[in-house]
């Protein structure tokens, strides 16, 4: 079974999701995990689907991109079967005045501690820059990571918080 990674990016308008999903459904492609948002007003969708050959999907999506306002890419990927849980889940939040390198500096701290970013959103609104990330951290390192993040945040002049994304099992 082919597993395909598809991205659709471009000028937003109502109906893009319906158009893309319809193309995939018609080809017998099963849409599995997907995410879509607007990034500074641009439509941005990333999805995984299984079924047809990459070339067939590319051809079928081509008319959507014909006016040059949307860019669709299709590539075959190897099913990875999902990664093992690697640690404890945390939510990182950073906000402050926009400047270069906030995401780079913060995520470097996480990586150096053996952490893994599993979800990330950043938004710039006016001069306010906001980063929210879901992070898996190895057991026992969160205090040290929080300390390092605080020091890096102070250098950048932004505020940071790291809190456990604890789940209530009901």
């Amino acid at each position, binding site marked *: 079974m082919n597993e395909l990674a598809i991205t659709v990016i471009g000028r937003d308008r109502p109906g893009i999701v319906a158009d893309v999903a319809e193309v995939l459904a018609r080809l017998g492609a099963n849409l599995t995990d997907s*995410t*879509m*948002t607007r990034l500074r007003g641009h439509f941005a969708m990333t999805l995984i689907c299984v079924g047809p050959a990459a070339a067939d999907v590319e051809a079928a999506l081509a008319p959507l991109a014909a006016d040059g306002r949307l860019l669709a890419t299709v590539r075959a990927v190897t099913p990875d079967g*999902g990664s093992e*849980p*690697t*640690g*404890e*889940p945390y939510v990182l939040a950073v906000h402050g005045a926009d400047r270069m390198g906030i995401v780079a500096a913060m995520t470097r701290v996480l990586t150096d501690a053996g952490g893994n970013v*599993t*979800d990330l*959103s950043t938004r710039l609104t006016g001069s306010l820059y906001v980063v929210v990330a*879901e992070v*898996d951290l190895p057991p026992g390192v969160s205090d040290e990571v929080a300390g390092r993040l605080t020091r890096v945040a102070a250098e950048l002049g932004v505020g940071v918080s790291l809190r456990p*994304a*604890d*789940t*209530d*099992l*009901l």
Partner: protein
Amino acid sequence: MTGPEYAGLGGWTPEKLGVPGAVRPVVTAPEPVLSRPGPEVDPTSAEVVRLAADLVATMRVSPGCVGLAAPQVGVSAQVFAVDVTGHPKAVTVHGTFVLCNARVVEASRWKAGREGCMSVPDLTGDVKRASRLVVEGALPGSGEPVRLVTDGFEARALQHEIDHCAGLLFLDRVAGAHAIYQRKVYL
């Protein structure tokens, strides 16, 4: 915990059911029974008493489980068991109890929290729940009406189970399109 917190249940314990509970298999989504509103039950019927005992037994053998509703064992009915005893987030604790035909009659102080569910084992989601809650229902066996006043974690558990009885999963209440997550930590 003893004292007035138990008053709402009149000292009820699962032993009052008088039948041993059997552990039943827990079903997972997309099992249709989880999405179907359960009918009201006769809390005094032998069938409901047995179901109540089974829910308690199944809850007790499931690690980390603080509540279990009839649809989760494949039975469409308004019956659920709750026990948040010893949970670090619990404030008011009514011990182990089973309620039939339960209704939320007052809900306030809504708070967001991340929930997981035995019937949706691979996902969690951010859901707002009332942290002050008044629930009315009936005890299995006697059918006696009860009014439970609770808060915090027990309130969250009650709302989650009452939702199950109405055919709703936490997925029906997530805060937004980016508020569901792959579950990473297994209890």
